[in-house]
């Protein structure tokens, strides 16, 4: 699993870094993004470009987003 913690980064770095990582993601990889808020714009880009994600609010101001390209991968297995 690739871990990307962008909680301390200013806009637009979290979005740019995540999309950059997503573009390089192979089908078997899973990307775990840790963010301070739910990154809605990211979801639209992922959905339109063959990505799948699971978004969870772990605590106040901490979101975990698990991202994959594999349509058969059960993201629930990665639930925190």
């Amino acid at each position, binding site marked *: 699993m690739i871990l990307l913690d962008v909680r*301390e980064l200013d*806009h*637009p770095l979290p979005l740019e870094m995540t*999309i950059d990582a997503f573009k390089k993601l192979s*089908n078997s990889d899973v990307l775990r993004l840790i963010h*301070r808020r*739910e990154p*809605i714009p990211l979801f*639209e880009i992922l959905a339109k470009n*063959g990505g799948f994600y699971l978004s969870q609010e772990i605590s106040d101001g901490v979101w975990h987003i698990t991202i994959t390209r594999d349509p058969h991968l059960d993201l629930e297995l990665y639930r925190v």
Partner: protein
Amino acid sequence: MFNGLSLDQAPPISVVLRFFITLPLFGLSVSALMIFFPSEILTANHPISLASIHLLFLGMISMGMIGALFQMQSVLGGAPIPSPLGNSIIIHTLLTAGIFALASAFMFQVPTLFIIAAVLLGSAIVYFAQILLPLLLRKMAHNTLQGMRFAIVSLLITAILGIVMATSYANETFGDSHALLRASHYSIGLIGWVAALIIYVAFQVVEMFYVTTPYSDWCKHNVKRLLAASLSLKILWLFAALPFVWVFDGVIIMVLIGFSTTTMKRLRSRKRRVSDVSIWFWILGIGLLMIALLSHLGSMLNIYPLLEPMSLIAFALFSLSIILGMMGKIIPFLVWFHLNSAGYMETPIMSNVIPQKRLKMTFWLFCSMALTALIAPFYPLILIVSGLCGVMLFSVVLFNLTNAAKLYRSILVNGTKFTFEP
């Protein structure tokens, strides 16, 4: 897990760009007037002064804010504006033609043009409000949406008062209530429309973009209430000729000082002190708002008569500073977002859509324009220098925006889509 933000049905990029690209064109018009008519612009109620004020507040500030609202409604409201492309063309065309008609009516004193301007601007604003208000009434949990609703209602009232005054100008007969209508028109326009919208946008974007501590819930809930109550009571007091109207101005000033200090505190204590031109514009804008408020306070206390025009200039510069800063942030984001959504590999990083060097140039040109404009009430001819800075500033802004649009178009036509590894 939905938090009220959605880009699922974001309007096409041309919807927002149309309004933003028009802004520097009106900026160039105002700058030209500053160069050729510096003394007239600084003379209260002079036709060229009134033309410049309306070019500034409608052609630049409102044009930028209406464009941004098209994007914000879809992103924050979750309910997109229906037929955004067609509706934006209608509103933009009516607004642009109306602003030209109004500025020409003031400059050339043509009565018919006042009526044409009233019809065009009234139609643009009523049409815009009747599209947005039902969407904002549908889902009101978000404080920023409530602030947007208050701002649009204020814009609507400002427009109605403007239409009434335009008919007075067209008939060249001014009733006893003209001065009261005028005071209500600019109070609601400046505070209810411009300041309220900027404040509620700040509540949303400052903590989101710059990783600051959030504004207090008390602020988010009560600023609009305090502004709405103060403005309503001020107008009631004015029309009823009651004493102590200044109390309501005092409350508005206190609210805006509170907003300025709390925003400045957040911007200065942000976690990562990364250099970003948009933050410079925010800090400068908040500083200009403080100058506007203190000079207005000074003029209320009759300290010095020239503080009143200085206050209006500082307020306009505050609004422009925030709008230019946000445009430098929004346009690269929209180009990047729409190209990535469509899956283009060649999508540049946001900082390459409008290079930092050119954004910094706009900031320093804006600073030069602002500084010279602020001292112009005391030395009117310096407004020529301010106008020259304005010409350079808005030429660079126009270049930045058209280049971003060309880049978007070029990748859309020639780009290749993401290739997925198996």
